[in-house]
């Protein structure tokens, strides 16, 4: 059942939230040992939440637009009374004293939290292999990675553990795993969704968004979690129109650009073929298609890795063994800080903190970080020119289908390359989503990325709905 179907059935009393959550938990029980989508399955809390939803329905109250819908939450979203680890030893056992804003909004909409999903440690990675608690496997083929860093959330949806999940996307961490697992994944415009209670990685790039089996489900979740929040000073102040309302409006007359810089070299031929098929479907539905160019997008990855790591090195300074999480004792505080961080962080996190520290250090700031911020301006300007000619842009989400476990773990550069199509969007603060569009030569899912200007979500979702319908 989709989230939309579940909520209608629960709200109308046709089905109890408890039976829905029971089914979700038994699906998890049957498949979780193989997939390892979760760091924590909160069966008891989920059933108690479901009973409360059923009590409300019985009392004639409306539990909300996600009544009884099982939701899986990425383990970097703070949940009061439920452990939040970011898949790191340094936060193992920590139970947040508060809920993230998105968690509060989902709760108030009647959603039920079935658990916290596995991820690359502190969202640093593209395969969910950088987890202190072991990798997640792709439910479509257990020998492959689910993508990352929101790999547990994408796998949970693909395996049918929950119809929807939340992830976070700093450089593609929602869209890339969604593509590799064959589900829908949305990176909203920066500031559309509050980041309060999202454990920070790179604050000027991070954004929370939904993963779901259908476009309509991802739209419903986005409508629930978006909106201004006084607790996040970067959240957009004005409420935006719901994307669900215009989902069926089609793409007739829309100007769609095929992003040249992200469609040529380095894109696997079978992936490129599926993107062409998707473009054809949009054209058949009335869109006017032409080639688009965002020349600076090719520098996205380099600028991204400097900016994201610089911000990360600053954000992760807070894990010092003083206030929460792990502490490794030493005779002095500086010694304790160093011992704690050296024992608590995994390889990739250390590597990125080092890159960021280097890029910000005296003598290198102008050459690396300062320059990357100016390249970011180039990318923003090039996108702005493209938006004068186009309503939407299209590209692959990932250059390849899901790769094998272990294939890229020894070679950080090859791992980073899987984000080449997604990072420019984060640098420009824009919206984008990945929609599954058939399979590649290996039978594994291919995702098509739809890019929209800032706050272009309603139009972006219309195109996603057209693509989804064209496959049926």
């Amino acid at each position: 059942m989709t989230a939309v179907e579940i909520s209608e059935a629960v709200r109308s009393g046709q089905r109890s939230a408890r039976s829905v959550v029971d089914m979700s938990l038994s699906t998890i029980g049957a498949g979780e040992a193989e997939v390892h989508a979760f760091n924590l399955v909160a069966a008891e809390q989920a059933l108690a939440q479901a009973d409360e939803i059923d009590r409300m329905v019985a009392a004639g109250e409306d539990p909300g637009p996600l009544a009884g819908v099982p939701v899986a939450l990425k383990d970097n979203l703070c949940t009061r009374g439920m452990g939040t680890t970011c898949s790191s030893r340094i936060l193992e056992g920590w139970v947040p004293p508060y809920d993230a804003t998105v968690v509060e909004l989902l709760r108030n909409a009647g959603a039920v939290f079935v658990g916290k999903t596995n991820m690359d440690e502190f969202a640093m990675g593209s395969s969910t292999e950088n987890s202190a608690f072991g990798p997640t496997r792709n439910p479509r083929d257990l020998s492959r990675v689910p993508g990352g860093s929101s790999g547990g959330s994408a796998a949970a949806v693909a395996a049918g553990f929950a119809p929807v999940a939340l992830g976070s996307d700093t450089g593609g961490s929602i869209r890339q795993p969604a593509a590799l697992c064959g589900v829908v994944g949305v990176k909203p415009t920066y500031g559309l969704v509050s980041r309060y209670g999202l454990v920070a990685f790179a604050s000027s790039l991070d954004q929370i968004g939904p993963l779901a089996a259908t476009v309509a489900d991802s739209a419903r979740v986005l409508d629930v979690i978006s909106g201004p929040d006084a607790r996040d000073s970067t959240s957009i102040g004005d409420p935006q129109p719901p994307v669900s309302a215009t989902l069926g409006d089609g793409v007739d007359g829309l100007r769609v650009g095929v992003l040249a810089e992200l469609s040529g070299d380095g894109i696997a031929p079978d992936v490129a073929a599926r993107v062409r098929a998707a473009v054809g479907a949009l054209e058949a539905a009335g869109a006017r298609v032409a080639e688009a160019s965002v020349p600076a997008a090719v520098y996205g990855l380099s600028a991204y890795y400097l900016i994201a790591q610089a911000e990360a090195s600053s954000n992760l300074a807070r894990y010092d063994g003083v206030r929460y999480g792990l502490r490794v004792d030493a005779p002095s505080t500086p010694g304790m800080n160093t011992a704690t961080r050296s024992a608590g962080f995994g390889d990739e996190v250390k590597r990125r903190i080092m890159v960021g520290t280097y890029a910000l250090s005296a003598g290198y700031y102008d050459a690396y970080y300062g320059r990357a911020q100016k390249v970011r301006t180039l990318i923003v300007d090039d996108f702005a020119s493209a938006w004068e000619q186009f309503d939407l842009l299209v590209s692959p989400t990932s250059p390849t289908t899901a790769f094998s476990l272990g294939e890229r773990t020894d070679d950080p550069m090859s791992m980073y390359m899987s984000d080449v199509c997604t990072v420019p969007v984060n640098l420009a603060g824009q919206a984008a989503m990945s929609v599954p569009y058939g399979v590649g030569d290996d039978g594994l899912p291919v995702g098509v990325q739809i890019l929209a200007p800032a706050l272009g979500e309603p139009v972006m979702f219309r195109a996603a709905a057209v693509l989804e319908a064209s496959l049926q």
Partner: protein
Amino acid sequence: MGQQRITRAECARVAALARLELTEEELERFTGQLDELLGHVAEVEALDVEGLAPTMHALPIANVLRPDVPGEVLDRDEVLARAPLAEDGQFRVPPVLGEAP
């Protein structure tokens, strides 16, 4: 890639700045990996960005102000209960200057 961009000694200095202690094996591996990564991102050095303003945030964001009245805050005891060590309503740490006897 041409010349080496980061030496083992620089790598060790950066680790110390970041409050990380690396084993010999880690230091060796990270030096090579950081060097490769910096070689790759060096493409930004070749770009003409003269006269461009840096972008800190992609969207125009202004400071948000609110009336200066006390709001809800986290409960102190609840927060301290999650700390590695707390005493008298405060976080407790080893000596900051010098070492414990």
